[in-house]
């Protein structure tokens, strides 16, 4: 478990202070995969580096495994760091050591005897699927392979927390999926709590159970990934979500739709278990209405479906109004207006 309690981190001194993290309170539960998303410079890396005291908090408390860490001694700090594995965007492997040497490095620091080290290295190589690369040097490996070595190295001392600083940001989409799957496996098989930071929403969608959105050093929103996706509160969050859900129609397309379709245009948002019910055809029959489906998407989030439809309702105004009212009881309905500026607050 990791708990940030009103944590602030300020760099520099008077005059040119940088407030990298401002009054952040967050709790990461044991065994979960928690994601922090934000644009570059939002303060994510700084927040992450506070967990293993690569940075010291200016104010506030950080509790790791029931222990307040900012006041611990040097020996306790070493122990703390061996309980927390860390992986990086740029992998940060030792170029002078081969794969086995890199994975064994934290064990050497912990003074684990050689036979035990070799055993553990072999086990980890199997876990990350790099048995055949044991004698290779980092520069002979692909990015994905380097990150696998990074993960194996981070797991060497059997930590209970893994922190990941943009671990997939330097990788292509396919390799990203492989590494994310490996992180899922780390979480499931070893029951390791994972705290990751990213600027990519698909990473959050793929593996996180909960998420916090950071902007300008502050956490502006946090919660269940599904809840955040289906009901984002801030504009930043909506932007991140639309980057993966692809739900925004271009203003030009919307204007054309309005010109070509005289009817009433609505966006229907299906969440939870609703997605699989025949809502539209039921309403169409009941009110003798025509539905013209103009755009649609369905996504899987946290094993739940999240759907989004833009429909034109063709019928008299009063009937449409009644039908919309009934729809509202089952799904979320938003009227789609003609231009982006007016749409901005409506669209997800």
């Amino acid at each position, binding site marked *: 478990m990791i708990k940030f309690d009103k944590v602030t981190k300020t760099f520099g001194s008077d005059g040119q202070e940088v407030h990298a993290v401002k009054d952040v309170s967050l709790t990461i539960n044991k065994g979960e995969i928690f994601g922090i998303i934000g644009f570059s410079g939002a303060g994510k890396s700084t927040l992450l580096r506070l967990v*293993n005291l*690569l940075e010291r908090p200016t104010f506030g408390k950080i509790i790791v495994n029931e222990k307040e860490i900012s006041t611990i001694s*040097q020996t306790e*700090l*070493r*122990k703390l*760091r*061996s309980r*927390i594995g*860390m992986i*990086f965007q*740029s992998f*940060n*492997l*030792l*170029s*002078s*050591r081969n794969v086995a040497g890199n994975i064994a*490095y*934290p064990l*050497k*620091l*912990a003074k684990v005897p050689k036979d035990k080290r070799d055993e553990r290295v072999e086990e980890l190589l199997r876990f990350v699927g790099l048995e055949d690369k044991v004698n290779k*040097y980092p*520069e002979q490996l692909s990015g994905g392979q380097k990150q696998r070595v990074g993960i194996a*190295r981070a797991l060497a*001392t059997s930590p209970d927390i893994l922190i990941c600083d943009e671990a997939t940001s330097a990788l292509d989409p396919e390799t990203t999926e492989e590494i994310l799957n490996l992180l899922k496996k780390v979480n499931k098989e070893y029951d390791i709590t994972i705290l990751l930071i990213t600027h990519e929403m698909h990473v959050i969608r793929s593996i996180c159970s909960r998420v916090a959105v950071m902007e300008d050093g502050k956490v502006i929103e946090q919660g269940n990934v599904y809840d955040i996706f289906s009901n984002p509160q801030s504009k930043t969050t909506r932007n991140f979500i639309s980057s993966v859900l692809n739900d925004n129609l271009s203003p030009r397309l919307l204007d054309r739709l309005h010109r070509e379709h005289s009817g009433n245009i609505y966006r229907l948002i299906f969440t939870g278990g609703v997605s699989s019910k025949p809502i539209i055809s039921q309403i169409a029959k009941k009110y003798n209405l025509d539905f013209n489906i103009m755009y649609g998407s369905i996504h899987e989030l946290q094993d739940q479906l999240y759907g989004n439809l833009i429909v034109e309702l063709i019928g008299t105004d009063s009937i449409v109004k009644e039908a919309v009212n009934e729809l509202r009881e089952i799904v979320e309905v938003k009227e789609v207006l003609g231009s982006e500026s007016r749409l901005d607050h409506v669209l997800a």
Partner: protein
Amino acid sequence: MKVDWTTFWPKIVEALGETIIMVILTLLIASMIGIGIGLMFFVTREGNILENKTVFSILNILVNVIRPIPFIILLVAVSPLTRTLMGTTIGTMAAVFPMTIAASFAIARVVESNLVSIQPGVIEAAQAMGANPVQIIFTVLIPEALGPLILGLTFITVALIDFSAMAGTVGGGGLGAIAMSYGYQRFDTSVMVVTIVILIVLAQGAQYLGNYLSRFFLRR
């Protein structure tokens, strides 16, 4: 007056031996001092693992003041100190002292620039794994900088052959003294040619050995 080559060859061989001893001795002592200074210079820099403003400023002044002094000036400037420490300013051993000073700071600079080129993230990763500053110096900084460091030392060795010749002209021994007293003062071109060829072969040999060792340590 031409030299008598039958008696002159042994002199050249002896001078070659002196040059090699000067260079190797200087290289050994200066490497230890230079690597030490270079490491201290790097780790005491602001934001680094043993940040220390005072130590850094002192080293910064030493490195930046002594290193740019032309060797021939340094040689003369430290001669009183050389006399105090070595008892004389003449001969092979006396030449080692100023050469060591010059080489130490040159090596310190090479070491520091190699260390700067290590990705900072690698040091941070070692810290995150619980390494203390001493462990970082010996398990990260030195091994990571070793390959390019050997190339740097090779460069210094070649410069030392040059320095030794210069020291030879002002009282040190070795090939420089031969070139000076026979080739230059007696206008004997053949002596000049022979010493130049030997110096070139020596420099090339050092370069070749350095390249080989650096490849060996980089294992790539």
